[in-house]
């Protein structure tokens, strides 16, 4: 009975029903698309940082994250190598030796990161090989060949075949110096990375800085990287106690936090929109209820309690909100899904935000059912809350007052 009344009321006051419906639908869609776009760009930024070089997890000596110097090296790399090789949850892994040195071209010197890698393994772990822009990628037999970032090459004013002098320090803190020949130049799009890094075959670097069987860390790619905290703690259990396995969210913590800050500002901005929608739904409900005051008075006079009236009004908004939010969620979901597969292209956005790690003009949305669900629920609850005040207000009137209401 109450349900029928509610349904009839919805159909009778078409203007209000339609407005509320469209408004909630539009809000839901907007919210979902907004969040999908925001999350999408954040995921894109983090993903490029993870996949281009950092990797999904690292294994390093405890203390290395705080003091990444020669005092915290993995001294026996082969033992870690063996543990990682026997772990079935790991797809591939490789040791790296990161150090900093002064690189000099003919007329310029620049301080840069220089990393010893195993070229064949790195090819599967990072985007180094596929980011080749000129010349050739390294191979496992290379000796004094160096593979450098495009911006670094520009800074040093060198090109393929040029010679670079390196001055750095060996792990015994003696001066290490050598001459390298540029074999390849890469461009990942990560601005800082392209301007500050160079790679050489680890076995050769080991001979220059005396780092044989040593590594600063191992980078690890798991079979499934979705629940990084779970897999890293599983790996942690297998490691000797002085080592730690660290997931990408800790490795890139300041980037992750930067994205969080950006999200918070995004949510604050859109919350004002929610506020105004909330009021509009409330006003429309209020006005609609008040034009029905006489009728509600009649229902009360006929013996319905104020609780019944409240329930009728609640069913009305419940129906409206359910329809609007579901349709809105579906539309929003479809849009998010579509633009996840076919990213939006904003010309020049990568150039503009290169300092923040955006590498491509393609910005995919992020389609995530959980996010869509909570987005939709937020709007749904907002709708339900909007009816509370009008409903309470009308129930304050007595039946006779309501019937006399003009």
């Amino acid at each position, binding site marked *: 009975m109450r349900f029928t009344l509610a349904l009839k009321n919805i159909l009778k006051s078409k203007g209000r029903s339609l407005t509320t419906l469209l408004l909630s639908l539009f809000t839901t869609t907007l919210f979902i698309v907004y969040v999908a776009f925001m999350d999408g760009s954040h995921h894109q930024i983090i993903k490029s940082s993870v996949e281009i070089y950092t990797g999904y997890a690292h294994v390093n000596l405890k203390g290395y994250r705080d003091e990444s110097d020669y005092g915290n090296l993995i001294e026996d790399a082969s033992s870690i190598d063996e543990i990682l090789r026997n772990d079935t949850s790991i797809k591939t892994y490789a040791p790296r030796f990161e150090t900093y040195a002064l690189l000099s071209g003919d*007329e310029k010197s620049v301080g840069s990161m220089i990393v010893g890698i195993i070229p064949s393994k790195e090819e599967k772990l990072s985007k180094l090989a596929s980011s080749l822009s000129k010349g050739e990628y390294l191979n496992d037999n290379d000796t004094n060949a160096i593979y450098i970032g495009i911006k670094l090459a520009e800074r040093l004013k060198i090109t393929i075949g040029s010679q670079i002098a390196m001055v750095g320090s060996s792990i015994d803190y003696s001066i290490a110096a050598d001459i390298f020949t540029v074999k390849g130049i890469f461009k990942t799009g990560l601005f800082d990375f392209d301007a500050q890094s160079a790679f050489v075959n680890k076995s050769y670097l080991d001979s220059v800085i005396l780092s044989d069987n040593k590594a600063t860390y191992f980078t690890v790619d798991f079979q499934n990287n979705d629940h990084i905290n779970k897999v890293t703690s599983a790996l942690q259990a297998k490691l000797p106690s002085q080592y730690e396995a660290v997931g990408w969210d800790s490795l890139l913590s300041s980037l992750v936090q930067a994205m969080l*800050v*950006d999200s918070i500002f995004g949510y604050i901005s859109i919350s004002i929109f929610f506020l*105004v929608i909330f*009021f509009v739904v409330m006003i429309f409900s209020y*006005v609609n209820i008040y034009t029905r005051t006489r009728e509600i008075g009649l229902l009360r006079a006929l013996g319905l309690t104020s609780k019944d009236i409240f329930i009728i009004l609640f069913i009305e908004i419940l129906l409206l909100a359910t329809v609007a939010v579901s349709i809105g969620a579906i539309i929003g979901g479809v849009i998010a899904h579509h633009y996840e597969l076919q990213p939006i292209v904003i010309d020049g956005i990568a150039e503009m935000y290169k300092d923040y790690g955006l590498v491509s003009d393609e910005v995919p949305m992020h389609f995530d059912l959980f996010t869509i669900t909570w987005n939709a629920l937020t709007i749904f609850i907002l709708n339900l809350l909007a009816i509370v005040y009008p409903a309470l207000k009308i129930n304050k009137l007595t039946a006779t007052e309501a019937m006399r209401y003009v």
Partner: protein
Amino acid sequence: MYKIAKHLAWLSLWRRKSRSIMVILMIALSLSGLLAIQGLYDGMITHMINTTIRSDSGEISLYTKEYRLHKSLAYKLSPVSKIEEKLSKIKEIISHSVRLQQEGLIATAHKSLGANIKGISLEKERDFGNFDTFITQGDYSFGKHKKEALIGATLAKKLHLDIGSRVVFTAQDADAEINAISFRISGIFKTGNPALDEYTVFVSMEKISTFLNLKESATQIALRIQNTEQIKQVQKKLQTMLPELEILRWDELYPLLIQMQEMMQIFNLASYMIVFIVAALGIFGVMLVSVLERLREFSIMLAIGTPYKMVRNQILLEATFLGLIGFMVGALLGWIILLYMSTWGVDLRSFEAGLETFGLNAILIADIQYYYFVQAFFAVFFATLLSVIWPLRILKKIKAIQVIQGKML
């Protein structure tokens, strides 16, 4: 007649108190929110622009034409005193800073990183942009014998440096010889400009000149200009005076900042538009019903000879009052929030690392601009106008006679 309409509108407004209050609250709360966000975002960008100008670019910077491309000492400004002499003739320039910079490697006993070394004069930097206020630890000093250095906070953190720590800087000098120089850290600074905080060490001009084997040389001369309006004019003057140099404004050196500001303005405008179109829908709901439920009353007014204009004015004024009160409450509330955020700031220290990535301070200081309120006023005004178009059309269409006879529309 206008007076009567005003009187009627005002009374009608308060006859339906809850409704009017809902509309006023809607306008006021969304308005204050918009104002707060606008001020906060504006403040963030203004802060970034300010620190960039103060710590690096000034309003205008001078380089040789090739320097910014090659960053090489071969393209140095020299002799500095000749350029300074010419600068002194332009009275709009209130101060200038001469800097000499070279890229290299900074190293502790355990670790080394790529970095820039920059020679400055502490007194001049203080005049130039109060650089001393950026110091977070230690002193704004190069020590008694000018042998100490100031270092960027991020760089210091990466190298685990404290006040008094010793570092070695290795770089190529003007003759392409690789030299090393050692010094102690006397102070740590944090400007919010990543290029400085992450990569730069400041030393005295004398010390770096000896180290790089240069005299009377600089890589950059940055200028402060008295008034914003004079910047372009001074730039032109300098271009004719020093045609061999590259004379760039701060917004040409850091185009991202201007782009961000423009994006923010577009974003704000779009927010205002969306929010107030929806708000107009809210006002419309109330106005429509209040016209519909008073059709009979309006009809009687029209029947006894009240001019249509007066009835129309009454409706317009009702909506205007709602908008105006909403605006005043919202503007006041927004102003209070902005005032708070501009004096005390918003403390986001728990997100410090994230904010630093964007070059922001952990305490965000909002801006307050007069134009925010003008913009807000017009937004409310248009929303109000928009909301009464339809109700007024209904009013225009009513035939008094039919309503009185009970044949409602």
